[in-house]
């Protein structure tokens, strides 16, 4: 079946199998920034934005994004670069496998709640697992980023 949606600002038409999930569609289409970490909607590595809201693409049927706007980290490159500077400063750089999803989450958080408290950041990010950093450095980096500090 043919599904039409807007991917990172461009209208696309992609042929998918019925029952195909958006994660597989995007990766097969060449968008490799979206990662498969768990196949069970529990790690957050496959996060994309659908109409600006974070969604786990491993459990969203591609057919459902017909006519919607899908964003991956490819559409927020400058913001991701700026966030990465904060990550580097705080020691939050490690394997990077989940980082694109983190960048999308921070982008969405910023839109929803530009001045979150520490607890609000934690609540927002709780679904994005990280086995490398111990989280605190990421939290500090996100806070610095949202605080506009470079």
């Amino acid at each position, binding site marked *: 079946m043919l599904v039409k949606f807007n991917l990172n600002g461009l209208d696309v038409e992609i042929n998918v199998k019925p029952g195909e999930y958006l994660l597989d569609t995007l990766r097969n289409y060449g968008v490799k920034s979206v990662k498969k970490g768990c196949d069970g909607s529990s790690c957050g590595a496959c996060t994309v934005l659908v109409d600006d809201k974070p969604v786990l693409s491993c459990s969203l049927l591609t057919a459902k994004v017909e006519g919607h706007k899908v964003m991956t980290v490819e559409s927020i490159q400058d913001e*991701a670069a700026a966030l990465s500077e904060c990550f580097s400063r705080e020691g939050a750089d490690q394997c990077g496998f989940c980082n694109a999803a983190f960048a999308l989450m921070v982008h969405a958080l910023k839109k929803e709640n530009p001045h979150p408290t520490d607890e609000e950041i934690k609540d927002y990010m709780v679904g994005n697992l990280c086995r490398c950093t111990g989280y605190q450095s990421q939290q500090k980096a996100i806070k610095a980023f949202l605080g506009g500090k470079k």
Partner: protein
Amino acid sequence: MKKNFKVVNNLTPSVDGKGLMQGRGVYTDDLAPQGALIVKILRSPHAFARIKSIDVSEAEKYPGVACILTKDNVPHVSFTRAGQGYPEPSPYDKFILDEYVRYVGDEVAAVAAVDEETALAAMKLIKVDYEVLEPVLDFEKAFENKSVIHPEDGIHDMFPIGFEPKKNVAAAYEMEVGNVEEELKKSEVVVEDTFYSQAQAHAMIEPHTCNARLDEHNRLVVYSTTQTPYHMRRIICKTLGLPVDRVRVIKPRVGGGFGGKQAFHGEMFVSLVTLRTNRPAKCVYTREEVFGCSYTRHPMRISLRVGANKDGVINAIDCRTLSDTGAYGEHALTVFMIVGSKVLPLYNKVKAVKFGGKVVYTNHVSAGAYRGYGAIQGNYAVESIIDELAEALHMDPIKLREINSMKEQETSPIFKIMGEGTEGTEMIMESCKLPYCIKRGRELMDWDKKYPVKKVGDHKIRSVGCAIAMQGSGIPFLDMGSCTIKLNDGGSYMVTVGATDIGQGSDTVISQIVAEALQTTMDKVIIYSSDTDLTPYDCGAYASSTTYVSGNAAYNAACKMRERLIKEAAVELKAKPDDVEFDGKVFKAGDKEISLVDLSTGRLYNNDTHQIAVTESYHGHVSPPPFMAAFGEFEFDTETYEYKMIKYVTVTDCGTTINPALAKGQVEGGIIQGYGMASSEAVIYNEKGKLLSNTFDTYHIPTVKEVGELVTEFADSYEPTGPFGAKSVGEIGIDTPPAVLCNAVYNAFGVRIHHLPITPEKIFEAMKEKK
């Protein structure tokens, strides 16, 4: 001791941080060839069984199936998946596919098909006739059990490791210094206790992934999420009967390893499928496979007896250990030995010390390398019983540690006796700031105000616990790293290393070492790592070796390059090399000068053209341990026994922190992984031996909500044998949380929890027993 660093020990962004955040497709599965056959693995439903027959005739006929591998059509060569140097200290007890299956999830067959759906559908058509055998699911009953897990012929050890498969023993080890029984008898106070640790899962977010293809020379090219590309090439070639020159292994970016990617997971299958079909093939583990079909930390039972005088001087430690290696003996002996060799030297004033026991096979998921590698299990037991001893002596637990622990310029006889599966090597602690770490950590925690417990609410109390730890820096006389530096026109350096960045940041750390030694900036250093065709040899990322071993190789190569550049410049300047000064940019001799840019460009295009390149290696003769003191504060609910981490303070001596931000990341990441093992990562098998805790929903790794305030400091320390004074920092962070939490629970409630993880239920049960 050089200290005025410009790049090293300075805030330096990771070389790849930006690109990874921006989502570059550089991980193994991102690089899988289009149209690769999908390899799925048929796995055993039984904990222990013999395959009487496999019928794949219908499955093979299924449209879209390219190839099916079974025990009947793959080479029958024993090997170990462990991913270690050669000869391995692990038994050769694994076949690519075997007549026996030894845990629920063990490999029965591999199906390669055009897509996943087809592979899974075809898999259902494979008929396997099993003779179901009685499994061994209790590791305390494995020794000499009537069920023999490895009854097959053709398995062996590479050198004596105590391998007795007919008794279900993968490895065994005994050592004694002095006379422990006598010293215990003479001691005024003796404490003894037994501790159990669980089969922690690595739970790295990127699953085990590999793919294979043939290149234009018809060589086999394997991309793998491996920590050990060179070992992988050697083991593939040896097991499949290929010459080393026909195989190339590439490690792209890896999304976390923690030891879990040191071994093999699917690489034999994709290699065989590609060789047989001439098509590319790929295998990506599902999350359930990552949990249930790779390998875990070795669960252990550790029994200790410690004897001391009333003044607090510890006389003797006896440590008996039983380790469960599951179905296969990967790292069986070496993890076991680290329980002793990377924990017991902390208390180096003892007159006698004994360590020993067995590593047994069971029908559990295999155990293997995992960050900490025995040290975390040993630390949980030893650092818990040290608190018990302190109580028995009516002594402050920190003071007891201060009296007995390792100091600078001291040694331990254990270093010489215990190595990596073999004898060890003597060493003096050239750098050991442990006393400072303890003192500083105590201040940062405000320990004296908080110890042992304070009431903070109606039914809330806060208690503290402490532990000290050590690790190593590579395996002396075995681990080797190397580095090639090539000068580009324009004066930049192309650095190639076998060292394996698995997310810990070694590409950045090595670049910093090269930049510092060549007095240049990070933008002039380009690094490429871990490709057996293009980069020089390195043993890989394990044993806390990369910064120390590979870092020393990079340092040696950079020094050689500097020497070489000065000679080249001397020719241009018509001066003696000794008279040439080089500041990283310009060479000067008297009033003559030439820039590096001009020299490097000239060597490729104009004068005396030739490529300037150097290669250097390093292998250590010592393994200088990093040290740490850790202090945790936790808040407990006295009604529900639920608890949370309030604060975790660590002060670490890892020598110079080459990259302070990354070093902090290593420590804090380790702490929270260790805290997961201490608190929430319960491993659950059903009565038939099936692992039930095999998803992120059933196996709870810490989320951001469980993390308290982490206070992470480093001691001012300089290891003379390390690159710019550095030691390792990759593993030590994980070691302390189980003991710290266990001690804090004791300080809160007066009960000691002997099984990890420490759950509210276990505290509740212990409280019931206490009453």
